[in-house]
């Protein structure tokens, strides 16, 4: 993805939901996009497969997808190619809790519909494939296929959505908040399932969440988003133990843990900015404990910190590094305690 920007058009003005986002994803890599409400992460995810609702405009940027050595810009695909891209190459797993199913048809019919929409013919073939897929996600096809969505638990629904996404063996799976609103034990089973599937089938994964622990579990690389921009981009260990952007630092400090010492846990004061009228300069500056005047003058670009694969959009990243004192693989909250 290169320099993608997406705006929502509302009466009050254009909401700059996603601003100039760039990242690269390798084959079989897992990327976590972490952000809170208003960070633009869901707009980004939906934009990746061009499912954006009406009233959304991609103002600039490219989404380059490479298959068998051929690179194409997803944004410029025509309808047929787009349909093929969607699901066969890149599939999306929606949030099960958010009414992602048609309530009046059975799960089997859901499978059938999806298969047909993407050119898979023959009921028997679909039936076999559905059986295979449900098996992969540890569900009993005999029980699940004839059921309606309200008869399934949250965890089961999420598994079905994952199964549906894998139907055409995509190279890239995008998951939007896959474990939100699920119980602890169910979350655990979904996380383990994703890990297993990834190992077996080798697809790349992008998942979007506000839950840092999900990234800690599954991701190779991680992006934190704030007010529509990428503020930090790093390998997962670097992000968790050596964050260089004050927002990443703040986020890590705000999440309590069950195991280990509590450390110095504290919230981030203030609220996210209005995406229609963004402040001049760094959008995090109003809440940032390290902000200086220079921060309010211009939006900081992504700078390479420590290693070239670790970037942070902060001109004071060295100061952040000093505050953390140590570079050890120890959680941030403990380092600051």
């Amino acid at each position, binding site marked *: 993805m290169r320099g993608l920007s997406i705006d929502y058009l509302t009466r009050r003005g254009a909401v700059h939901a996603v601003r100039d986002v760039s990242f690269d994803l390798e084959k079989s890599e897992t990327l976590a996009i972490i952000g*809170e*409400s208003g960070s633009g992460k869901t707009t980004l995810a939906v934009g990746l497969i061009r499912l954006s609702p009406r009233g959304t405009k991609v103002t600039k940027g490219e989404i380059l997808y490479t298959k068998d050595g051929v690179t194409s810009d997803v944004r410029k695909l025509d309808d047929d190619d787009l349909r093929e891209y969607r699901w066969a190459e890149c599939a999306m797993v929606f949030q099960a809790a958010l009414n992602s199913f048609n309530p009046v048809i059975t799960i089997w019919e859901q499978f059938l519909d999806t298969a047909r929409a993407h050119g898979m013919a023959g009921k028997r073939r679909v039936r076999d494939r559905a059986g295979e897929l449900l098996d992969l996600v540890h569900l009993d096809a005999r029980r699940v296929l004839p059921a309606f969505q309200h008869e399934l*638990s*949250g965890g089961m629904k999420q598994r079905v959505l994952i199964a549906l996404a894998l139907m055409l063996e995509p190279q890239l799976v995008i998951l939007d908040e896959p*474990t939100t609103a699920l*119980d*602890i*034990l*169910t*979350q*655990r*089973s979904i*996380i383990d399932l994703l890990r297993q599937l990834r190992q077996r089938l080798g697809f790349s994964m992008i998942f979007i969440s*506000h*839950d*840092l*622990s*999900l990234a*800690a*579990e599954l991701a190779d690389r991680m992006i934190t988003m704030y007010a529509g921009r990428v503020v930090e981009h790093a390998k*997962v*260990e670097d992000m*968790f133990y050596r964050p260089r952007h004050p927002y990443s630092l*703040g*986020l*890590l400090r*705000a*999440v*309590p*843990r*069950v*195991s*280990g010492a*509590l450390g110095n*846990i*504290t*919230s*981030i*004061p203030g*609220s996210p900015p209005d995406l229609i009228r963004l402040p001049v300069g760094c959008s995090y500056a109003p809440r940032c404990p390290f902000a200086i005047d220079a921060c309010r003058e211009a939006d900081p670009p992504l700078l390479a910190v420590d290693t070239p694969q670790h970037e942070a959009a902060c001109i004071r990243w060295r100061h952040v590094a000093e505050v953390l004192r140590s570079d050890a*693989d120890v*959680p941030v909250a403990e380092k600051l305690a």
Partner: protein
Amino acid sequence: MTALIELERISRTFTTPDGPIRAVDSVSLALEAGEAICIVGESGCGKTTTGRLLSGLIRPTGGRLLYEGKDVWLTKGADLARFRRAVQLVHQDPYSSLNPTRTVFQTLSAPLFRHKKARSGRQALAVVTELLQRVDLTPPEYFLTKYPHQLSGGQRQRVAIARALTVDPTVIVADEAVSMVDVSIRISLLNLLLGLRSEFGVTIVLITHDLAVARYFARSGRIGVMYLGRVVELARTESLVGDPAHPYSAALIAAIPEADPEITRTKKRVELRSAEIPSLLALPPGCTFHPRCPLFEAGLCDALVPELLPIPEQREVACHVAVRERAGEPAAATA
């Protein structure tokens, strides 16, 4: 010391077309004044119903609710009204906990006028301003004329807490009050609640499914773990987290994904015998956890319902095996 508020073998059964559902089954919990306690469990465990029983919003179908030693549902008139004000519930959903057609000032001043804590607009203004400052909504003047839709989730929850404070409660039950709020401000809300406890001695009961939040909030208090309507373990937080006695608690703690790659990828899980959660309409006999329990002992666990019994170091657990193994332990053994 008599407990401030106590649930004595309280039960609540709902009748549905499919049969009776025992949402809360014989739960006993005694809370002291100024205590911070968390009730933790997954969905369907009865924790929300327990919270509503505690606040007197629903009647128990069995057992008693005692406030200052008196059975609440036997009191009437002024005493009952006094109880109602003394125990306030803060709801989970910030988007429906405030009346959308009333400003913050209107919402907060209504109880003040009603209970004669303010007799004029000016007095009400002073009290409301102070309340807003106490819940960290500054500058207060800015918030007075706002409608709920103009506030963020976290701000709305603060207004809801301020509303609860208008009647000087002795107990606040926060039902998943931080679950729908952004991660980065959860801690400040929890700190706010803890501050109320240390400053005014208000007992706070936090109901949540998030054990990490529970551990932070109740770090100097207790946690009660619920499963299918019963309390299966009740202990001081650090004891529970460090050395869970009940296999379900152990499974939960081991299953939580942590925001720390090193820890979370190397954590040891507790394997459960089955992933299926029994329906509340068809509970297993004996200990309801037995079909999934790694410590299951045939003949014992599927025959006898375990009571919540005390074990060393001021803990209680409802597990035959755990009680047997720990009851004989010397008092000095804890993590």
